[in-house]
């Protein structure tokens, strides 16, 4: 057990997998010699050589495109898109190629690759370093989408993602790299070294994809969240004093619907929180599933708290970001309904 930041946990997961399986290769823009702009691959090239960890040209379609070919050959590429906001040129390779290769070739060719991307806002990154495109992946058949909220999960989920026989999109909330951001941008963030979830097992350990975690037990209302919003929701629950149960989804597809259903049936209320824009966001899917499964247990309409339907702004970042105050208001509204 070692205290690690989320970046260190991610690096450790790749290190563990590269040492166990010489088919695991890591590459992307600035990923090789320098170790990535967030330093997730620092030291891996020195340890495993340039043919296992290397820099690529600035071409996201190229990065994912060669990864598809490599995965079809039999390697396990774990590639980095520098920011999720840059993934659009690679989207065709993800949607039309990686996601469908197993299906269309009837299993003759498969595509076991991981695409890591820093996601979400809160760092004054403006519209090109802040987006949360998870719903663009969950809508695609044939890929899995994972969003960890802490170092321990990041390592265990990334190891599962690399071991998975199918393509996995691994979205890393960049605001959480150094600590569990509670939604108050004007306060200092507690570092992961002082947080229980910064305790990360050494060596190989896997958290299965498709299992949610209950981060806070409660009886009054269920909050469904993932990534950064798990911590922001926790702040809102603490500040309103509402006895909320917080479910950290961890994996959006496959989704742990059983855990969600059990919680909502217990509390009778549900608030869904995500950083991504509201309309057609993953919250809409969750909302539909919860009402189908739990309709006769619901005491109040399901509410969604999300980013406004605008491009991610720069100066207005904290007006845009669904912080503890907005989540708190939704919690009160659902309790009063």
């Amino acid at each position: 057990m070692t205290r690690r930041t989320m970046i260190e946990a991610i690096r450790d997961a790749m290190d563990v997998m590269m040492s166990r399986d010489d088919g695991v290769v890591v590459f992307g823009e600035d990923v090789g010699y320098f170790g990535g702009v967030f330093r997730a691959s620092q030291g891996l090239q020195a340890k495993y050589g340039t043919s296992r960890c290397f820099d690529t040209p600035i071409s996201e379609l190229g990065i994912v495109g060669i990864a598809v070919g490599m995965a079809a050959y039999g390697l396990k590429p774990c590639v980095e898109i520098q920011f999720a906001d840059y993934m659009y040129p690679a989207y065709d390779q993800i949607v039309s190629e990686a996601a469908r290769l197993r299906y269309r070739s009837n299993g003759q060719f498969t595509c076991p690759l991981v695409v890591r991307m820093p996601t979400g806002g809160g760092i004054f990154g403006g519209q090109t370093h802040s987006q949360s495109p998870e719903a663009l992946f969950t809508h695609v058949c044939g890929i899995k989408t994972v969003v960890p909220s802490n170092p321990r999960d990041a390592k265990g989920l990334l190891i599962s993602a690399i071991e998975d026989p199918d393509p996995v999109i691994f979205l890393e909330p960049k605001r959480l790299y150094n600590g569990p951001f509670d939604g108050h941008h004007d306060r200092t963030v507690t570092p992961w070294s002082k947080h229980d979830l910064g305790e990360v097992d050494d060596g190989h350990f896997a958290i299965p994809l498709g299992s949610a975690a209950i981060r806070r037990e409660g009886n009054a209302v269920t909050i469904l969240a993932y990534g950064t919003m798990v911590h922001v929701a926790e702040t809102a629950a603490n500040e309103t004093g509402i006895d909320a149960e917080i479910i950290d989804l961890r994996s959006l597809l496959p989704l742990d619907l059983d855990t969600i259903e059990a919680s909502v049936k217990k509390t009778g209320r549900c608030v869904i929180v995500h950083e991504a824009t509201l309309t057609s966001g993953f919250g809409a899917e969750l909302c539909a599933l919860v009402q189908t499964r739990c309709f006769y247990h619901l005491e109040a309409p399901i509410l969604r708290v999300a980013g406004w339907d605008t491009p991610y702004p720069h100066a207005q970042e904290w007006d845009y970001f669904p912080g503890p105050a907005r989540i708190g208001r939704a919690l009160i509204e659902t309790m009063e309904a």
Partner: protein
Amino acid sequence: MPDSDLTHDTMSPRREVAPSPAPAPLKLHVPEPAVRPGGTPDFSNIRIPRAGQVDRPSVDVDPEAIRDLAFSVIRVLNRDSEAVGPWAGALSDSELLEGLRHMMTLRAFDARMQMAQRQGKTSFYMQHMGEEAVSCAFRKALLPGDMNFPTYRQAGLLIAGGYSLVEMACQIYSNTHDPLKGRQLPVMYSSREHGFFSISGNLATQYIQAVGWAMASAIKNDTKIAVGWIGDGATAESDFHAALVFASTYRAPVVLNIVNNQWAISTFQGIARGGSGTFAARGLGFGIPALRVDGNDYLAVHAVAKWACERARRNLGPTLIEHVTYRVGAHSTSDDPAGYRPKTESDAWPLGDPVIRLKNHLIVRGAWSEERHKQTEAEILDTVISAQKEAESYGTLHSEQRPTARDMFEGVFAEMPPHLRRQRQEAGV
């Protein structure tokens, strides 16, 4: 070093510039083919050197030294059907006869499947008429384990690789024996065993994947190479350029083929090519050796393929090959070329017909005759018809014998996730 006069002049703020006249209105340039329907076919703009004229450099040549090969056309068979020049001579009579049979088989299979589509036995078909030499000859330069990333007009790779015609027809019919379980559009074959990567149907996407596959082979210190395929029109996609960048940067053991058959559905090749002299010339900026070859000349395609594959296998890096050919038929069964090009254009195509050219060459060599050719044509037709009949015994698209609805839910993931299991239950399959 002091500034040169020229630099000084250009940079000097004191220099007086004469006022420009009022700018003329700008005009957009949209390239047009030489002729449209109703006109007389004209290929005078296509420069075709005599057979045997282009040098054959050693495979480790400096790409800079062979830039001219991107603007010429490597040809072996001359007008008298003789094999001439430095690219001739690699294939024996029996290898050439086998090549002829492959091309004739592909042509016969195309004709039968085209007809089957018209009879409603399948939804769609794409034929190779005029382009048979490209994939049939290329296949013979490869070794077991090499991987093609083909487009939909390289079924010669399968036929020349010994793949079963029955399986091809079953895929086209989407029947109970379709190896792809009815999930793919007809002709989007896949056979790992035969070095034929699953065809996407999206254009160009697989060019960069071929580079990735080749890089993986190099990472694993394997000896296999990859081969990418793309059409003239699809070279305009970003994937093409990404493939050239990555292949160049990592010196991937890959051969990148451009099949320039002059037409991208209704769009003539000038729209994708723009101001560049040739498609092959695209490789020069990447430092990739680029060759143009007579795509209707079985011997030339094979010789160039061997050269490029040897480069890849000897770790010398990628090669770009432009196969100059002509799509004689329609783009697909959903297309009618009469709407965009003269009906007689294919007759005017200066590089002739690949089957007839190889046949005539074999006759000149004394290894073949018109009678044997006719006889073989009939034999091949029998073989194709019997394969077709067998495939039809397993069903055609609208028959009862087809992959089940249950099959539709399988294979999305290695293991079916809960939400798909629920949907399959809901569908009642």
